């Protein structure tokens, strides 16, 4: 025991004088003093440390809350569907587009994001959307579709005709941060009142009055848990939950709990309730989509219901609040009954707390879960196209910025074209495998683009289109066979040949640079002798191509190929003429794009514009074009390609395409039938299809028997008959040509075709079969008379 007296300095002094008189007492006194001083010291240090620690936590709390709170993934959008009178579209295509962008069928189509179809008429209410060039306001429109065309388009409120409007574009992909957290930021006022009420009723009833920690709530939870003999109730406030998710780990330790409480109070000290609630609404974890973590009510509304958070109904709001207690346990897609039960519990609690009335509760409880299919527009719908978008953007943006800055990327993907291409590839690969008894799995790649703009509208990289793996449209490298031949014939036309020029389809032996003799063959192993250039092109005669190519010079053909858009270095070997060079479908698409654009090289592109998260325009990828060929020459070649499709190698399959469509293209077949290609175009689409086996084994398909079937199927669904007359070209004259001789034909010629000839090219003599055979090069009277009008 110690007494106060012992603490007097006199005592200490006397003790100093007589140190050995009472050593035990003295030691005890000394110890007591040390403890006291230590206590004071430690209290002081403790207080200081706690203060410093609190300051440290305060720094963490404010720094993160005031800085960039989240890494927001970039969002990739498809093209917006344009609507205007005379637009070619079927009711089915329109309804499908509406479904893709999350519109729901309703009784009048007058609520944002809903539609009503009645026969040929569709009423729909659009959502406001900020595009690069302007904002499209929300409006209710009525349109009628007849004969696959929009007949009328009007504003439902004013009755005025609408000359042009567009729907909001479908979100087709997300470029995530590496931690795979995904969210769509929302502001508090964008969340339905029900959602906030339900959230507070269930998670934190005293949110508006506590200071971050609800001690009463903790006490109540403690009692409830003791009573139940386990954890049945949590005492964490929304602020604490936010702190836990936003700043701390998930570990269940006392230190973490203390940090959580201090930080929650600090958060409440610095920020108002609305800010905290908004951060909570964006932070909270609400589900999982593969590797992607669904955070915040904004994204959860899209993920579960395919609609923006503003449009959430009472039962939907209650379901989201139900899910947040345990997104895996209450996953409504896996455990519908469990989620429904909890949702109804939340609705009951809201009724008990008089947040909703009896009728609202009854109606909401009777509502089914109304979930959208998963994922309605998440990451994986168009992986092949999104991959192309990423590659284009990586030239201009850092990977990190793409993943974290919440950029809004607008692309040219046309979901209608994409779906047609995907379905066609899936259908035909399965059918061909069966019909041709192909032993190795058949796969393929497709690229579709638009003449004029050069915009890529569809990319399919696998017969299972959702598979995010090897992208055959962009990355497969296969010999292209006869796909390069149009460049050869174009070079010939440039040098003064015409479609009527006769060339030798005869045996040829060429000594290659390595000393080996190269002796190509025709596919049918027949030498056809003298043939017109038109037939050589349309029937894809190899020997004619090689003979012609050697005459006009390989270097010139290489130059033509490069001007057409083949950018890689090409070896000037004779075998190049028959396509012994490996390329991807997208490379070929660029070449045929230039042909479709009648000699204007238009770089293919998938990205139109990039906006910041705040909708500020950041970057445009404008249209570019450059004339590289005389368009008369290209028109001549394109006629040859049309002929090839209808009368040449495409003859049999082209019968499945409506005859009023202007389509043309070229088959490509490689040695031992390992690759099947078709590349071609109509007025509105350029499309390239490749089929083959990944192990490069033979598939037994030519370009015509394989890829052309897919191509024709796609074009038959997408192409529309030309509505405007083709533009005239004063440099081209149409003449009847006898294909047997390449001379001017006439009534008596059985094998006569009207061909476009560039002025001052082609024959000026008549074939013997032409009427007035005795007239020799002049032709008969009727033929001469016709000639006046040609």
């Amino acid at each position, binding site marked *: 025991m110690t007494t106060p007296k012992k603490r007097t300095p006199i005592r200490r002094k006397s003790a100093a004088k007589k140190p050995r008189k009472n050593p035990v007492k003295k030691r005890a006194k000394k110890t007591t003093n040390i403890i006291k001083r230590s206590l004071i010291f430690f209290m002081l240090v403790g207080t200081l440390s706690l203060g410093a620690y609190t300051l440290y936590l305060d720094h963490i709390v404010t720094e993160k809350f005031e800085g960039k709170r989240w890494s927001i993934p970039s969002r990739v959008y498809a093209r917006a569907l*344009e609507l*205007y009178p005379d637009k070619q579209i079927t009711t089915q295509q329109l309804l499908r587009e509406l479904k893709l962008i999350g519109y729901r069928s309703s009784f009048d189509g007058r609520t944002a994001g809903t539609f009503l179809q009645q026969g040929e008429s569709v009423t729909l209410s659009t959502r406001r959307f900020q595009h690069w*060039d302007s904002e499209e306001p929300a409006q209710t429109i009525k349109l009628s579709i007849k004969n696959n065309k929009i007949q009328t388009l009007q504003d439902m409120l004013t009755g005025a005709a609408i000359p042009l409007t567009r729907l909001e574009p479908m979100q087709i992909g997300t470029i995530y941060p590496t931690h795979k957290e995904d969210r769509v930021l929302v502001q508090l006022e964008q969340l339905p009142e029900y959602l906030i009420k339900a959230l507070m009723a269930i998670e934190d009833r005293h949110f508006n009055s506590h200071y971050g920690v609800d001690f009463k709530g903790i006490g109540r939870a403690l009692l409830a848990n003791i009573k139940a003999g386990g954890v049945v109730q949590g005492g964490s406030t929304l602020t604490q939950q936010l702190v836990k998710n936003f700043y701390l780990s998930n570990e269940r330790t006392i230190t973490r709990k203390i940090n959580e409480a201090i930080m929650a109070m600090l958060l409440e000290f610095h920020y108002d309730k609305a800010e905290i609630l908004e951060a909570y609404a964006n932070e909270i974890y609400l589900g999982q989509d593969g590797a992607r973590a669904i955070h915040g009510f904004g994204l959860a509304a899209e993920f579960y219901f395919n609609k923006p958070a503003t449009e959430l109904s009472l039962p939907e709001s209650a379901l989201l609040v139900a899910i947040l207690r345990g997104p895996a346990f209450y996953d409504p897609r896996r455990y519908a009954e469990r989620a429904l039960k909890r949702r109804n519990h939340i609705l009951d609690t809201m009724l008990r707390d008089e947040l909703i009335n009896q009728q609202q509760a009854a109606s909401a409880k009777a509502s089914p879960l109304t979930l959208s299919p998963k994922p309605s527009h998440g990451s994986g719908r168009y992986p092949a196209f999104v991959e192309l978008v990423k590659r284009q953007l990586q030239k201009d943006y850092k990977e990190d910025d793409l993943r974290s800055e919440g950029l809004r990327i607008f692309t040219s993907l046309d979901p209608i074209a994409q779906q047609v291409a995907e379905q066609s590839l899936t259908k035909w690969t399965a059918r061909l495998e069966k019909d041709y008894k192909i032993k190795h799995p058949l796969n393929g790649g497709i690229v579709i683009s638009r003449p004029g*703009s050069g915009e890529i509208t569809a990319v399919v990289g696998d017969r299972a289109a959702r598979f995010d793996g090897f992208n055959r449209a962009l990355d497969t490298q296969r010999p292209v066979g006869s796909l390069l031949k149009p460049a050869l014939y174009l070079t010939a036309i440039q040098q003064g040949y015409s479609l009527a020029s006769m060339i030798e389809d005869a045996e040829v032996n060429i000594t290659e640079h390595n000393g080996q003799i190269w002796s190509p063959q025709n596919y049918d192993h027949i030498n056809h002798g003298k043939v017109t250039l038109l037939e050589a092109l349309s029937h894809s005669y190899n020997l004619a191509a090689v003979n012609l190519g050697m005459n006009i010079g390989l270097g010139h053909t290489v130059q033509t190929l490069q001007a057409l858009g083949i950018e890689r270095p090409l070896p000037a070997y004779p075998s190049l003429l028959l396509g012994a060079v490996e390329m991807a479908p997208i490379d070929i698409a660029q070449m045929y794009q230039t042909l479709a654009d009648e000699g204007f090289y238009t770089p293919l592109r998938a990205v139109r514009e990039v906006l910041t998260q705040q909708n500020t325009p950041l970057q445009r990828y404008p*249209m*570019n074009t*450059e004339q590289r060929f005389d368009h008369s020459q290209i028109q001549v070649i394109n006629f040859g390609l049309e002929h090839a499709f209808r009368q040449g190698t495409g003859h049999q399959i082209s019968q499945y395409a409506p005859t009023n469509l202007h389509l043309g293209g070229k088959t490509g077949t490689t040695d031992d039938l390992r690759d099947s290609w078709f590349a071609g175009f109509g007025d509105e689409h350029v499309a390239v299809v490749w089929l083959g086996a990944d192990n490069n084994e033979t598939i037994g398909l030519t370009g015509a028997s394989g890829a052309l079937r897919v191509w024709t199927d796609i074009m038959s669904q997408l192409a529309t008959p030309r509505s405007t007359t083709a533009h005239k070209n004063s440099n081209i004259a149409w003449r009847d040509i006898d294909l047997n001789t390449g001379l001017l034909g006439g009534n008596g010629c059985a094998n006569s075709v009207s061909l476009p000839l560039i002025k001052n090219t082609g024959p000026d003599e008549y074939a013997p079969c032409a009427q007035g055979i005795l007239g020799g090069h002049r032709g008969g009277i009727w033929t001469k008379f016709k000639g006046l009008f040609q």
Partner: protein
Amino acid sequence: MRLILLALSILILSACSGMMPTATLSDPSGPGKLLLTQAQTHQDNGEVDQAIALVERAVRIEPRNPYAWHRLAQLQLSKGNLHKAIQFAKRSNQFSNNNQRLKALNEKIINHVEPPL
């Protein structure tokens, strides 16, 4: 010296393009016409990129509309992108058929920038 001449020619040409009757107001119809008119408003406000975006939208809807291509040529010219202006004017010519007035406007762009030898 060549640079000065080039700069002068751009200036003159830009002025000419401003004086040229805008081929957008009367001839095309439908969505193309609407977009070209909106583009004109943006251009008048000095928002050339917005104007280009709208004309490109018109080209996407009507890829064979020679007026839209011509407007792209004009807009590129106003930005001083001579090469692009010529190319778009050539593209416009391709779809102009017998529209001599439009062809003449295109030729004016092509020849001013790239005088015939």
